[in-house]
């Protein structure tokens, strides 16, 4: 099987790899590039654990072919912390007990990040809608929703 080159920016750094044509971005990130923050839960688009941000939009890395991302700006949860400190969303998830086994957490955080990037002060309904493609099987949704609302509040306090 011929290898094809892929090249994109991952969390601000250039990545270039040779992959099998038809490889999903999830597979390329986890098994070739070594960023295991996106999780493979279902590989069917249903659970949202593999959610990442491509060119500012939330996408599912399990249903995205890596070759279609040439030249793209790819962001994962692994790139969120700055200078060793946790991102406000990560901090809020920890403080609000919004992460139990943690498998859904990177996808939830990516979905929440896109929301807060566009809507810094979301309503509860907007948070619920933004997370509607992400499944959590253990924490329960309420602490997750509260964590996103808390992160939004702490962001706006920092800006103020």
């Amino acid at each position, binding site marked *: 099987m011929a290898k094809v080159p892929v090249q994109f920016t991952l969390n601000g750094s250039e990545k270039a790899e040779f992959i099998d044509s038809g490889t999903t971005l999830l597979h390329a990130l986890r098994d070739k590039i070594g960023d295991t923050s996106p999780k493979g839960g279902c590989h069917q688009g249903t659970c949202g654990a593999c959610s990442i941000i491509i060119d500012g939009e939330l996408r599912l890395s399990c249903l995205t*072919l890596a070759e279609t991302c040439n030249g793209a700006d790819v962001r994962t949860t692994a790139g969120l912390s700055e200078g060793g400190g946790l991102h406000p969303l990560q901090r809020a998830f920890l403080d609000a007990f919004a992460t139990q086994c943690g498998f859904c957490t990177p996808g939830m955080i990516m979905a929440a990040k896109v929301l807060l990037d566009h809507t810094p002060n979301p309503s509860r309904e907007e948070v619920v*809608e933004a997370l509607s*493609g992400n499944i959590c099987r253990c924490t329960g949704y309420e602490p997750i929703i509260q964590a996103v609302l808390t992160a939004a509040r702490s962001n706006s306090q920092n800006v103020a």
Partner: protein
Amino acid sequence: MALALQTFSTVKDASAALKSAGTLYLGGGTLVVRATNEGDVSISGFIRSTEPSLSAITVSGGKVRIGASVTMAAIARHPDLALLAPAARAVGGPAIRNMATIGGNLFAPAPYGDFAVALLALDAIVSTGDGDLPVEAFLAGRDNSRAIVTSVGFTLPKDGGLRFLKVSRVKPKGISVLSITAVLEQAPDGTVSSSRIALGCMADRPMRARAAENALLGRKLTRDGIAPALAVVGDGTSPPTDPIASAWYRNEVLPVHFGRLLLG
């Protein structure tokens, strides 16, 4: 896994490549990449085109043209397509909507295809590399179609002229029990002067409810006025039984939701 993706800058070149056995056009990939992830070995390669017209939306003089690669998210946020936003927002969660294309939705089997239901009620024209077809004929022949859909065109109804409803069990987003789109025109006295009703999940693909359309003509949208249409809205349906709902359930609740859509 022997899968190859070939990308072409023109639809013409992509169409030629699509003639090879085992190849499939790649839209947003939400159905086909899922199929290959699940081990569908009938697919040996994906073909796609990046021709810019496939990603364009034009609205002029009430006429709309949406390129086949336009996503549900792009439709939902387009200022001139507010009428269609509820149907576009009904497809999956946010990440799916950023990927799912209008072209792919035309091929989505029940219980999917919510947006195609709206296109059927709009009496859209589907343009392909092989020519133009009314959406109803396109949907009927889609299983044997090898042509690339390039765009979908339709006339925008007046404000309030399109009503869309999707019923699902999981809130806020879930797969359809059924969906209904009604495109209605009313005379100044409130009687229905023209009606197109399309149903989703009431057959293996979106279908028109012609008996209900005829029964609405000349009637007002009141409980008594719509009663004859409710009585026949299930004519000719053959809904699937799937993990979301049984065929029996879908038939039972269709008139209830149709009534709510008309009176709401």
